[in-house]
Every structure is written in C-alpha cells, then in structure tokens.
C-alpha cells in the first residue's frame, strides 16, 4: 500500500496501537513482520511467496557461508546466492529487455526473430529487497558479522514495511541491534515520526503530484511540440518531481519507522545544493550509492589499480547503477552520463586546478553546473526512448529559443519554475542539515504551525493518486 492513501493511515494506526499494546519484544517483532507482509500483499498477494522464498533462502545460504571453513566452499555459496538473487531479479526485470535487444542484434545480422510475447509483472520492491539480501550474504562472506540465528529477525530486516518497497536500503549492521534490542514508541519518536510523515506526504502530494507532475507529464508525453523554454520547464519539473516523490517516500519511511522506535538511515541530504557530482551522489539516494560503492565499485577493484582502473570502475558502477533503475537504454545513458561527469570531475580535481577547489566563486559556479548536469541527465531518465531523449537534448540546447520562449510560459509552468527555485534555495540554505535537527530546534508552537500548514496543503491537494516513481524499480 502507498503511504499517501487512506489505507496506509488506517493500517499504520492499527499497527502502532497493536505494537504498543503488546509487552513482549518477540511478540512485537512478529506483529511487525506480519504487518509488513500485509503491507506488501496489499499490492499483489502472490508475490509475497517470492519475498518469503527469497528471504528464507538467503537466510539459509548465509548460515552455510558462515559455517563453511573451506574458502572455496564459502565462495561457491556466495556465488550461488548471487546467481539466484540476480537471476530472479533478471528474469522479472530484464528478460524482456534482453530478448528485445537479442532480436534487434539478430535483425542487424539479417536474421528475423520475433521474441515470444509475454507480459511479466515486476514484483514491487524486488530491486530493493534483493539488495538487502545480497548485502547481508556478501557481508557474511566478508566476515563482517555472524549471521542471525533467527529467521524472524532476518525476515524483519528484509521485510520491515517502512523500507520494504523503496528503501532506504539498510545494512544488517544498521538494523541488527535495533531488531534484537527491545524498543517501543516514545513521545519524541512518535512526534518526530509523525512530523516526518507529514513532511513526506507534503513533498509527495503537494509538490511532486500537484505542482511538478502535471507539467512533467505533459512535456514528456509530447516533447516534439514544445519549444526550448517549455523543454527546460518540463525537465526541471521532472527534476523537482523525482526528488519530491522519492525524498517524500523516504521521509515517510523514516517517520513511520521512528514512530515505532526504529531509526533508518537518511536517504537524501539536500542533493540539489551539491557542489560537484561526487558530492551529489553523497546526497542523492545515499543508501543506493553507498551500496554500489561497497559491493560493486569495491568489488571491481575500486581505486586500488591506478587512475585508469579507477575511472573505469567508476564508469562501470554508474552504468550498472543506471541499469538497476530500469531495463532500458535510456537508464544506461543516464548512468553513463553520471559516470562521465564523475570521471571528468575526478580528472579535473587531480590535474587541472586542485588548489583552487575551495574558491567560493568557483564552488558556486560548479554548484550551478552540477545542478544543470543533474537535471539534463534526468531528461534521459524520464525519456520514453533514446530517440525522444535526443529530441529533448536538442531542444534543451537551443538556448536562443529558450530565452525567447520564457515569455510564452503559462502560469502552471511559471509555478514550476518558482517552486523548483525555492526547492533549490531550501537545499542551499539547509545544505549540511536535515529536517530532524531543524524540527528539533523549532519552538513547539512554530513547529505545530508549520506542520499544520503542511497538513492543510496536503488535504487541499486532492487529485489522482500517483504511484511513487521508485516503486517501478
């Protein structure tokens, strides 16, 4: 179920009440686990079996890895779990993409092959819980910690409903103590949790769905008919939408976990105020970028093999990270663009002007370049296909038309530009902070006033319910 639904409000109230009514920690954990599975089943009940199977298998395999003394056996077990997890993910997410590209390659060689028509439904959250499971097994393989003996605790780590379908992708080390040590709802946790929930719903319902989505959808549905100013507005609208949509989800996840006494890692730290692309990736979808760093970039060799290998590993990591988001070449190009940004940035920092990197004017200019680079890349992320992506790029870089077209923008498009500018300004002002310390510092009446206005704006923004964008990944 979605956080922005009446169903979730009722569900969460019931879970919170039941959780606090139970005294025994074991019983509370069972309640959370069952609630998490109900939460997941509300989308597509049969896929709960897949989640259960994946959870149980990885729990068993992790114990085997830990028990095996022979390094080769340990390696075999970890390879087995990689193959199984990535195989399942690949089947659901990439089989259509691979078949279509295989057919296109054959067609290029003059062989006519029509792949069978099949319509695979992607199990929601599969990319996220697969990464949970993989990090657990790989960390046990790397002897970072011993596996848990409790299936329930492991299942709760993978399936805990606030983070089950779209993250944050937590590590077992971040959750183990919280799962094993009794905890309960506190007034501070409940208050801050509900405040984060309101903030998340505000970002999702008011900003992403009401302000940004209509303009982004209208533009990307027919980019060929728009001029350059409309193209920039459409791309900035999507840039605002994807941040508010995903950060909104993450705030709701953090808030609902906090209300239950659990602390999840933050997933966003004002990314549109990043100075540089490596800084952007330390602020955007932090749990994924750190996962890719620890389990992919490091496994590829990281920065251990000299400059060229480092740059190659960066590019490969970003390409694979792009493909993780979706089975389409547009995602690969998006990842490739970010890889290129990172490679260029790293090279410049090392060779061109390392001494001037802290110059204020340079940093400001580079922050603007970063923002524009990130937003331009979002166009590929949202484009329907590669040809549409090119079409959008050509529109964006027709700067004369962009300047003359600004006067023709409608009020909804101007509202997008103003809101996006405000969003960037907020990111810049709170660049190294976050909502939790800020909410904590506000006097209670002012905090209440702010949250009350946000709640009113949520209620006053009815409309179609849009699925969270990251659910499709």
């Amino acid at each position, binding site marked *: 179920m979605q956080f922005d639904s009446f169903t979730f409000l009722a569900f969460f109230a019931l879970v919170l009440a039941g959780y606090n009514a139970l005294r025994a920690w074991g019983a509370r954990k069972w309640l959370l686990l069952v609630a998490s599975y109900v939460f997941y089943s509300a989308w*597509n009940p049969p896929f709960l079996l897949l989640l259960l199977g994946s959870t149980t298998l990885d729990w068993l395999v992790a114990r085997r890895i830990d028990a095996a003394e022979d390094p080769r056996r340990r390696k075999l077990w970890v390879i087995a779990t990689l193959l199984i997890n990535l195989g399942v993910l690949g089947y659901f997410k990439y089989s259509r993409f691979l078949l279509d590209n295989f057919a296109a390659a054959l067609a290029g060689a003059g062989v006519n092959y029509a792949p069978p028509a099949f319509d695979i439904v992607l199990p929601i959250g599969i990319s996220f819980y697969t990464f949970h499971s993989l990090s657990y097994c790989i960390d046990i393989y790397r002897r970072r910690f011993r596996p848990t003996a409790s299936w329930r605790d492991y299942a709760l780590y993978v399936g805990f409903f606030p983070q089950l379908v779209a993250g944050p992708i937590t590590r077992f080390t971040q959750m183990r103590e919280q799962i094993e040590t009794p905890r309960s709802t506190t*007034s*501070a946790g409940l208050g801050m949790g509900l405040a984060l929930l309101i903030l998340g719903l505000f970002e999702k319902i008011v900003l992403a769905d009401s302000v940004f989505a209509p303009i982004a959808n209208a533009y990307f549905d027919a980019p060929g008919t728009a001029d350059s100013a409309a193209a920039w507005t459409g791309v900035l609208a999507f840039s605002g939408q994807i941040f508010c949509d995903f950060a909104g989800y993450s705030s709701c996840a953090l808030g609902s976990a906090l209300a239950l006494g659990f602390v999840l890692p933050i997933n966003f730290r004002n990314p549109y105020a990043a100075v540089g692309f490596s800084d952007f990736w330390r602020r955007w979808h932090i749990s994924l970028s750190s996962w890719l760093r620890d389990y992919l970039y490091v496994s590829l060799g990281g920065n251990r093999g000299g400059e060229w290998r480092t740059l190659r590993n960066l590019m490969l990591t970003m390409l694979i990270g792009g493909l993780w988001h979706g089975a389409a070449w547009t995602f690969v190009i998006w990842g490739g663009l970010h890889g290129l940004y990172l490679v260029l940035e790293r090279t410049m920092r090392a060779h061109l002007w390392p001494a001037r990197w802290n110059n204020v004017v340079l940093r400001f200019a580079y922050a603007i370049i970063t923002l524009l680079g990130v937003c331009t890349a979002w166009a590929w992320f949202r484009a329907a296909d590669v040809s549409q992506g090119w079409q959008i790029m050509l529109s964006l870089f027709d700067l004369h038309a962009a300047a003359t077209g600004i006067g023709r923008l409608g009020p909804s498009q101007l509202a997008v530009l103003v809101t996006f500018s405000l969003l960037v300004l907020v990111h810049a002002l709170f660049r190294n902070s976050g909502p939790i310390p800020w909410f904590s510092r506000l006097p209670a009446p002012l905090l*209440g006033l702010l949250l009350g206005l946000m709640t009113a704006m949520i209620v006053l923004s009815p409309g179609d*319910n849009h699925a969270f964008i990251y659910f499709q990944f």
Partner: protein
Amino acid sequence: MRSSTSSSSSIRHWGVACFFCALVAVAVCVGTELHWRSLGYESGIIDSKLLWAEQRDQVDARGSRTPLVILGASRIEFSVDMDVLEDALPGYRPVMLAINGHYPLAVLRDLAEDEDFNGVVLCDIDARGLSAHYFDMQQPYVDYHRKQWTPSWRVHRRALDLWQSTAVIANPDFGLLPTLLRWSGGRADPWKSHIRFHRDRSADIDFQRVDTAAATQAFVDGFKRRLQSDPPPSPEQWLAGLAEVGKWVAQIKGRGGEVVFYDTPTSGKLREYADEAFPPSLYWDRLSATIHAPALRYTEISALENIPLADGSHLDFRNKHEYTHALIDALVDRGWVQR
C-alpha cells in the same frame, strides 16, 4: 531530536506542537470548505479509474444473480436508473461500466477475455463507435484494473467515496494550486457541475442548471468537427472491422452469456447529422446479422425515441425513471432479459 530532554518535557513539546498542528490544519481546511460552500458549491463523488475498477470487481462478484453489465459512454451512464433496474430485474446484478466520452469496445473485449464472465452485456454504442479505430478508447481503464488495482486501493477508494461525498475540498478543482492559478490569472471560479455521480458510477444530469440551447449547440458543433477530422469509414470497411467484435461476442455467448448492442436516443440536429454520416441502412441495420448478436436502435421503440433529450443527446435525471422502464420493457419483450 530531543532525546536528551526528559520524557515529560518531550511530551509537552510534542503535545503543544500537535495541538497547534491540528488547530491550524482544521482551521484552514474548515475555512476553505465553508468558503466554497458559501459560494453554492456542493460535495459529490468524482468518477475515476479507481471507481470504475471497483465496479469492474462487481462483475465477478459471487452470488446467485446474473451480472447485467452496462457498457457505453455518457448517454447510458447518465440515463439509466440503477435502482429501477435492480427492482424490475431481480434476477440480475446491474453493474455500470460505461465511461463518459469513451466508446466501450475495449471493455467488451476485456469481458470476452474474462473466462469467468457469462452474464449479460448491454452495450450502448452507435455506428461511429463501432469503427475499428475506436476499439481501444477505454483500454486505459482495463489496464488500470488489470495492473494497478490492488486490495489497498479498494480500501482507499471506499474511504475516498466517503470523503468526496462529505467535503467540497475533496474535489481537485478546489485544490490549492488550481485555486491559486485561477486567482493569479483572474479566471472565474470552477463551473458548478450539473452532473452528480453515485457510488455505482451512474449519474444524474440536472438540466435546469444548464443553458440547454448552448449545450445542444456545443454537442452539434463538436460532432461536426469530429466528422470533419475523422470522416466515417465506408460501409465495407466498417463491416470488416466488426469481425473482431463478432469474436468477442461469440466468446461471451460460448460461456452462456449474451451481448445486446443498443443505440441510445439522439434528437434534433445531432440525430440528423449522425444519420447522414452513418445511414442506418448501410451501417447499424447490418450489425446484428454480421456479428450474430441482438441489436436495438431507439427508433424501434416509440417510448425511447420520444423521450425528451435536453441537449439532443442526454436526458434530465427527472426522466431517468420513465426511460429505464421503457428500456427494460424493450429488452424483456425481445426475450434478451427476463423479469
């Protein structure tokens, strides 16, 4: 977070914050609601894919009564009295799947592909709507039901029904952003809708709240425009396109169901233009024999033909009762449904 403060001060802090939060939220929302109500606006259910999907579920609901599925567009959605259908045909469970402004054949295809469906379909459609390129108009609704409709949304939609029936501010037209954009652009407040939806998706039109002459002219002009941009297919092309429809009908009949095609009443200029563009002798009259399904045109029943249509296409809700009885009589007399 104030984790270091004492528990009681934390409770006080968050208690005060909650109090102000609730106070401000309630004051702003109630104030806005009262504002719109003072201008004469009323709350009401808003039709959506979710509401449609909820009714689509009713087709497959278990029970002894045969589903009587109503397909079509606004003419039947706004004309049939569902309570009269329930009372007059106690052996049937009427389900409204017609969608305003969309020809219905995608849903007929969906029912044909539904192995469990063996009920009766009353499909409101005119000759133009049977042209092959209109087959997919309602497909987004079918796709939504198949791919996105979940138990969670079912619960959400029930609560939304209640909220929309209660509050004017549940209507997106009165949302914060649309209101701000209207005010900043100096545009008028939203149109006071003359259409009122029910939870079963049937709806009432109150033509006393509308300039009927303007509405009639708008329909005629719109129809003429559409005919210019999308001229009628030749009768042969039209008949060829029906082969697929015939297969869907055969699938439903093969499971013991029935499909009745029904061309709902039009009048005045709209009727003239429609008959001129699609002469019944060349189009509609050949439908039944081509797809082996019963077809009823309003001209066959004087009670239907003479029903007053305020805009040449739709009837006022005060005439729904009479109209629905006349329609039921026609269906029963021909043996397509039983009382």
